[in-house]
């Protein structure tokens, strides 16, 4: 069971990295996530059931996620709509689109289908599938994390840091902030959709409501991470997001299975999530008077 928590934490950690990118680096609170997560799941499920295959499922999940983010950024840029409203608009539209992608159905089962996960476990026939998956996802998520770290060291990555800090400085560098918002919010949602594609395969189905509360999950992971490890180095920042996601999954797991002891029901979990974020906010706010911020 413990390896299940880790695997789920790692899968949702990719989504949390996307949330971290928009909320913490771009300073663009993006609610598209609640729609782009099931978008990735829907695209993946549609590709698998239609026979297009796993490779195309993952690729198209990334591309569609990027497009969803780009739409949010464009709504914000061109119509001067606040970030939050732009995200909500895209998220709402994605609900209908996701149902269309799944062939006018609210969910699409993937049981008995060949998925990335069955392929991976079949590649190591002698070993316990649960631990094979854990090993696979550790390597995969670390790979994504390292790529993201490297990205933030590039000339383009540095501009993203400045964009969330001081837009005037980005203008002075001769860079159009609107273009970078499209790229950045796109990358964030590509990660989220990719995470959704993996989650659908892990759970064995895609559902249009899979994204409910996803932003809150991502934020909780980011904040738990910040509470765990104070740092200013980018590789720690991304690492602690993933650790935060795993820990948050564990908290939810224990809440779900042992919460009955204190008369808690699964429907109370959303309340707990919200309280947890508020708690983490209070603690980090108290901890970082004067210092803190993006790379600090």
């Amino acid at each position, binding site marked *: 069971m413990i390896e299940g928590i880790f695997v789920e934490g790692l899968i949702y950690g990719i989504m949390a990295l996307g949330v971290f990118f928009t909320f913490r680096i771009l300073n663009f609170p993006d609610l598209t996530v609640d729609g782009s997560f099931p978008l990735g799941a829907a695209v993946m499920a549609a590709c698998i059931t239609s026979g297009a295959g796993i490779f195309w499922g993952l690729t198209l999940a990334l591309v569609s996620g990027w497009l969803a983010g780009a739409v949010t950024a464009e709504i914000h840029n061109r119509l001067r709509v606040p970030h939050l409203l732009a995200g909500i608009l895209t998220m709402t539209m994605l609900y209908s689109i996701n149902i269309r992608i799944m062939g006018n159905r609210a969910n699409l089962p993937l049981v008995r289908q060949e998925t990335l996960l069955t392929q991976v476990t079949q590649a190591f026939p002698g070993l316990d599938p649960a631990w094979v998956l854990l090993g696979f996802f550790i390597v995969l998520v670390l790979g994504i994390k390292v790529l993201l770290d*490297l*990205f933030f*060291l*590039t*000339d*383009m990555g*540095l*501009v993203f*840091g*400045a964009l969330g*800090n*001081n837009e*005037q*400085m*980005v*203008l*002075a*560098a*001769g*860079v*159009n*902030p609107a*273009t970078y918002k499209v790229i950045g919010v796109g990358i964030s949602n590509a990660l989220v959709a990719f995470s959704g594609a993996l989650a659908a395969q892990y759970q064995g189905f895609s559902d249009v409501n899979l994204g409910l509360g996803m932003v809150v999950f991502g934020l909780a992971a980011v904040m738990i991470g910040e509470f765990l490890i104070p740092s*200013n180095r980018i590789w720690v920042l991304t690492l602690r997001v993933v650790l935060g996601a795993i820990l948050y999954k564990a908290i939810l797991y224990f809440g779900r299975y042992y919460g009955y002891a204190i008369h808690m029901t699964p429907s109370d979990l959303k309340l707990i999530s919200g309280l947890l974020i508020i708690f983490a906010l209070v603690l980090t706010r108290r901890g970082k008077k004067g*210092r*803190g*911020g*993006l*790379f*600090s």
Partner: protein
Amino acid sequence: MIRLEGIVKTFHPGSPDAHTVFQGLNLEVGEGEFVTVIGSNGAGKSTLLNLISGKIFADAGRVFINGRDMTKLPEYRRAQYVGRIFQDPLAGTAATMTVEDNLMIAAKKGFRGLRISLNKKQRETFRNHLAHLDMGLEDRMKDNVGLLSGGQRQALTLLMMVLSRPPLILLDEHTAALDPRNAERVMDLTRIFVGDYGFTTLMVTHNMAHAIRYGSRLLMMDRGRIVLDVGGEEKAGLTVEGLVKRFSELGATASDALLLTRGGEV
């Protein structure tokens, strides 16, 4: 270098707050000129810089920079040719990024890709530049800019602007928010950089002594008009008292008293 033709600018047109700043402003600044701009509050100094940098657009008239018509070019496109420093030392840097990251972002203009340019050689170049500022920044390249003092931040902003060598620089009271010692240091650095790189410079200041001491030409603005435009020997012969007298002859707008005290300080 800069040519403004018939600039008209009204804020909040069609509303009760409508306020016309410029009604056909013309200005020509030659290559390599260092122009200081003084004037009371509301004279249109900042609006002038905003029109040149592209922060705001004129209702009518044309803006030429470097011989190109940039009337309709957005701010980020004009940034290729125009560097700018604001009064607020926080406005030009990213507080939660390191000194070297800030320098790297400013070192080039325009869209950038996935190369990692901040390498050992680049750091060495930055270190040398920082050492020349004489602000103790060369040993703090990995510190977040938010930890620096206002003077250090403004000196860093100045260096960041200089690194990309824009042909035209706009200084908007860039020493006004600093303590006297740091203000002098930043002003010194400004003079040195302008001398070394030959930037065409427009410097707005409230400090009359600075306006006289620095630069090759002095503009005095009042209610959207250029009321005094002197260069060469005539400028060298100006005194703070003389300027204040000219001001009062204009019919004493707004904050002349402030100008008097400011002028007297230095």
